[in-house]
């Protein structure tokens, strides 16, 4: 699962979330603007060192990139065919490194700390009538809701298989929609009960 905090005490864990966000922005901008094989190689080394210093296990680091695998393959093949292998590596490498860097920030920052920072950074938006606490909450809820929906999809898929309806799209979509709507009703009630909106 992307974006889940991996507890630790490294300097990256202790660094202020705002600083980490700025570094991420600088890093990503740099590799996009100066896209060349030497810059990418340097950036890759930097990321590797940062993961090592943060003591993130190799397996967990690779898990962060797993969702990219098909996109990477497709993009690689396509760019190679269009622009040659050097450009292909540049483009795909930039993407992978940007995701790896972003994942490193979420692995070393608690959601609470990140939200507090985001709330502070978004403070100017308060003057144009944006409810910062709500925006921050929506961002957090998104992280929380993804695995729940994934569970719903998983159990519906299992139920469909058990009934021998693997190829029936309706036996999939209908229960997923019904259960997701039910879940969002329950979630709404729970949020009210926990004082959100009061």
């Amino acid at each position, binding site marked *: *699962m992307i974006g*889940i905090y991996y507890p630790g005490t490294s300097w990256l864990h202790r660094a202020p979330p705002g600083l980490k966000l700025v570094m991420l922005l600088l890093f990503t901008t740099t590799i996009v603007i100066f896209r060349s094989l030497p810059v990418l190689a340097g950036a890759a080394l930097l990321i590797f060192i940062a993961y090592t210093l943060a003591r993130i296990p190799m397996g967990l680091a690779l898990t962060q990139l797993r969702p990219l695998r098909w996109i990477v393959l497709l993009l690689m093949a396509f760019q190679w065919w269009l622009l040659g292998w050097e450009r292909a590596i540049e483009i795909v490498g930039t993407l992978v490194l940007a995701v790896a860097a972003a994942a490193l920030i979420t692995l070393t920052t608690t959601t609470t700390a990140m939200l507090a920072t985001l709330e502070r950074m978004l403070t100017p938006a308060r003057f144009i009538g944006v409810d910062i606490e709500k925006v921050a909450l929506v961002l957090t809820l998104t992280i929380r809701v993804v695995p*729940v929906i994934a569970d719903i999809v998983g159990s519906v898929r299992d139920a469909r298989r058990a009934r021998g309806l693997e190829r029936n799209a309706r036996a999939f979509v209908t229960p997923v929609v019904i259960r997701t709507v039910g879940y969002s009703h*329950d979630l709404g*009630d729970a949020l009210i009960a926990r004082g959100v909106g009061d």
Partner: protein
Amino acid sequence: MIEFRDVCLTLNERPVLSDINAELAGPRVGIIGANGSGKTSLLRLINGLASPTSGSVHVLGLQPDRNGRAVRKKVSFLFSNPDAQIVMPTVAEDIAFSLRRHSLSDPERDLRVNQALHQVGLTEHHDHPAHALSSGQKQLLALASIIVTEPQILLCDEPTTLLDRRNTREVINVLNDLPITVVMSTHDLDLIRDWDRVLVVDGGRIIADTTGIEAIATYLKLVDS
């Protein structure tokens, strides 16, 4: 403590509760009744999730449909589905979320989070992602996120319906130890057998208000007829 006066509740033109008159006071009040009898609706009226169509509800001297905010500071709600109650991605963060308006210092907040975690036996899961917990552990986490706010009344709506036997035991053990008023609806009759006060709800009415043993007898007669 909780008072219903001539309460009726109609939802989408359907009468859901009628002629509810009751005074509920601690430490334990059970609610039993068939599916669709109105248990959930009754509980929702107490913390302002629903408003009476006519009549009035008073909780700790406040009216939940008018002072929802003040009521919800003192009255918490434990739902059946543990997944829907957990808002934050990790265990400790979810408990801390309950304290977001308590203006505590970081060490004070951490202390209270750890106490709540200890109380429900989830200390070692402090930094774990909430979705990695079992259903029972999730329900215990939801309970910890409630306990940490020190409510005066806890409403539980079939809190163990989605749990297996062992998880049910663990949740109930924590609930039993709470020194506050607990109002709980349930289908697990064993849980409320020893209680002094249990309501039987049927067709949107309270048809019995008595001890656990007698309430169960009334309910079973109802089911058989």
